[in-house]
């Protein structure tokens, strides 16, 4: 221990103390604001929630992948119905792969499998793929609206808007 002593009176001591605390507080606040800023993304990726998908008769029967990489939507057309499906696995949110040869969707994360119409039949996925709202505009083109979803287990697939009759 060194023998030097600072000669401080009460007032000086408190002013040192105040300076110390203010510096400390400012540093913490600065750090906190950096952390807070970090919570918000630098780039926001927000594709529009609805898009025009052309005329229903431009699609063949079965699964169509043309919008999958842009909007994350599979078009499925069967006799009489035209629907738009989400490409998010209902298990934990991976993106399944469409396997045309096997005629099914298969998730690369835990192996859930779906029929072309989106119904799950293998693996852990608890429910079918969700469907998006589809409607026709005045030119007869399909508008897919991803902000409105229809869930099979709630019996919503027969609601108007869940499909277009073709």
């Amino acid at each position, binding site marked *: 221990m060194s023998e030097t002593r600072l000669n401080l009176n009460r007032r000086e001591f408190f002013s040192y103390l105040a300076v110390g605390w203010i510096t400390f507080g400012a540093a913490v606040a600065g750090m906190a604001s950096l952390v807070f800023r970090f919570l918000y993304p630098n780039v926001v990726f927000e594709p529009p929630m609805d898009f025009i998908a052309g005329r229903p008769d431009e699609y063949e029967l079965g699964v169509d992948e043309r919008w999958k990489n842009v909007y994350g939507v599979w078009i499925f057309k069967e006799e009489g119905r035209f629907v738009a499906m989400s490409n998010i696995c209902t298990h934990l949110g991976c993106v399944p792969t469409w396997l045309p*040869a096997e005629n099914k969707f298969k998730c*690369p*994360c*835990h192996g859930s499998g779906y029929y072309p119409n989106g119904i799950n039949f*293998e*693996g*852990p996925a*608890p429910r079918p793929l969700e469907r998006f709202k589809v409607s026709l505009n005045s030119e007869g083109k399909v508008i897919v609206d991803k902000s409105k979803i229809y869930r099979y*287990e709630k019996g919503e697939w027969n609601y108007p808007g869940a499909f277009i009759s073709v």
Partner: protein
Amino acid sequence: MKNIIDMIMAPEYSFTAVVVLFILMIKYVDKIATKKFGYSLLLGMTVFIGWLFTDNVFRLNFFATNDNVPIIFLVFLVVWSCWFSLYKGIQNDNRIAAGGVPLEAEPENREKVWSWPNLVYTELFAIIACTIFLIVWAIVFKSPLEEPANPTWAPNPAKAPWYFLGLQEMLVYFDPWLAGVLLPGLIIVGLVAIPYMDVNPKGNGYYTFRERKFAITTFLFGWLVLWVFLIIIGTFLRGPNWVYYGPFEVWDAHKVLAANNVNISEYFWIKLLNQGLPKNILVREIAGIIMTVGYFVVGIPLFNKFFGNKYLKRMGMIRYYLMVMLIFMTLTLPIKMYLRWSINLKYIIFMPEFEFNI
């Protein structure tokens, strides 16, 4: 030979084999905890793994992801540390059985040293060694960077980092709420709770096996069989679409394994009673609910019968039942795995209406 290995490494067989091996290990621990066995094990593993690498397909799959490399080291480390602690434990057990004290309690081993400099220096060197190792590692093995993230596309297979592959493998059998939230939470809470539940003073400061047989067996089962082995499955035995691929099998994205998974409710109402699923959710799931409740209501008294006498008194009511709950929750994993493999079960209780699936 390679075809046979490809066949028996399928999770349902290899998992069973590992469980059997684990039981044998506990049963014949005296034989295993010898230097002779240790060396043979090391030799056997080295030869076997070396032999795996002579296969072109295995090598290709293996080096496709660089984080497979540390796993080989870790397999050796896990086996070694497990063998070493058993070896030390049995050594002490034999000394105690012969009327002596554990090795660590011998006077020459009780001598105390200062943490500064003894411990701190050791730590310093360990830090430097680790840093050098990591730097060399980072230079030699390039990190497996992939293309920029794309929310509408996933790699196939999409594998978590290797240390999470056990969890990912668990998710194959469960709803995400269970295998993704509840069970991992219980693993952490359970590990934190162990020192509070385990009040047995035996083994404090020395290795032992026989004095703590139950505790060691339970822990090692969870660790070796339900965690490490699941990581090995997830790492080496899962390929595109998360389908099983043998170690020598080419990853062909079109391998199809027919699996049509069925809920208990469908087994009960459609297959057994030959009628449609009832509208009321509770009625629909009644078989699964009875099974789940029965698992605890019948299982716990049964467990008490075997272990209650000894541990209930020693641990006290609360500790004992906490332990029982943790053990029963742990066992749901192998149970669910076997149900999936044997009867293609999807969910025991299935209520997607409430996002509640067991």
